[in-house]
C-alpha cells in the first residue's frame, strides 16, 4: 500500500499548520492592552444590537469591530470589495470557506486521535509483517513508506497534531 506524497511538510507548512491549530491559544495568550472609555448610550446600544444580530459575543465582537474600524481601505478599495462581494464567485467563496474550515477541523481531530495510537499501529504493523515472513508469505508483505519511520517521525506527528506546535530543531525531518 503506497500513499504518494510526504507525510509532513517543510517549515512553511509547519508554520501555517500551527497558525490554525493554535490560533485561539495564540490570540488568548498574546499580550493584551486594555482600553476603558465612556461612549454615548446610543452608540453602545447600536454595537450591542449589531453583535447580537450576528450572534457574535461581545468579548470577540468589540475587538473585531475596533480592528475593522481601524482598517485603512480607501473608498475605491471598499467599492471594489463591494462589487466583488456581490459576484457569484464570492457567494461560492463564503460557502466553500465555511465547509473547508469545518472539514479541516474534522481531519485535525481525527488525525489527533490516530496519532495518539500511531506507535501501537506501527508496532502492530511490523509484528504482522514479521509473522507473515516467518510463515514464508514474503510475497504478501507490502512495502510501505512507514516501514522506515523512526521515533523522530512519530514525534513530528505528535508535535503536529497532539501538541500543536513545531517539533524542536533537533528533530529530523521526514523524507
Amino acid at each position: 500500500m503506497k500513499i504518494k506524497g510526504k507525510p509532513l511538510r517543510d517549515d512553511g507548512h509547519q508554520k501555517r499548520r500551527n497558525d490554525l491549530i493554535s490560533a485561539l491559544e495564540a490570540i488568548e495568550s498574546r499580550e493584551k492592552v486594555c482600553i476603558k472609555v465612556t461612549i454615548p448610550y446610543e452608540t453602545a446600544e447600536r454595537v450591542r444590537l449589531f453583535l447580537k444580530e450576528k450572534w457574535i459575543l461581545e468579548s470577540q465582537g468589540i475587538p473585531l469591530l475596533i480592528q475593522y474600524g481601524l482598517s485603512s481601505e480607501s473608498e475605491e478599495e471598499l467599492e471594489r470589495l463591494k462589487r466583488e462581494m456581490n459576484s457569484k464567485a464570492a457567494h461560492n467563496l463564503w460557502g466553500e470557506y465555511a465547509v473547508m474550515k469545518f472539514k479541516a477541523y474534522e481531519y485535525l481531530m481525527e488525525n489527533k486521535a490516530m496519532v495518539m495510537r500511531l506507535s501501537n499501529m506501527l508496532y502492530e504493523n511490523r509484528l504482522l509483517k514479521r509473522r507473515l515472513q516467518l510463515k514464508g508469505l514474503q510475497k504478501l508483505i507490502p512495502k510501505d513508506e512507514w516501514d522506515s519511520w523512526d521515533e523522530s517521525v512519530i514525534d513530528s506527528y505528535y508535535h503536529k497534531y497532539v501538541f500543536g506546535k513545531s517539533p524542536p530543531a533537533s528533530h529530523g525531518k521526514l523524507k
Partner: protein
Amino acid sequence: MFSRLVFGKKGEPAVLEAFLDKSTYERFRDYVIKNCLSESDTVVKILEHGMANYWLLEFKQIKASYMHIKNLFEEFKKDNELLKAIQMENEQLKNILEKADLKG
C-alpha cells in the same frame, strides 16, 4: 479579561472595555494622536466605521485566509489517508494471517 459593554441607566453613557492585541492598540493610539480626538470620540468613530464596513472587511479577511485554509485542509487530508492506510493494512494482514492459520 473580556471585552464588554457596561450599561448604566437607560440613556446614560456606557462604559466600553476592550482588550486589544498590541498591534491593534498601537494603531488605535496612532489614530488618536493623528486625528487629535479624545479616546472616547475615537472609539465611537472607529466602531461606526467597523460596523458600516463589517461585511466588506469580513469578506476581505476570508479571501485572505481562504488559500491558507485550503492548504491546511489538503495537508490534513493527506495525513488522514496515510494514517488510515496503516490501520487498514493492519486489518488486511490480520485477515491473511488468520486464513493462513486456518489452512496450516
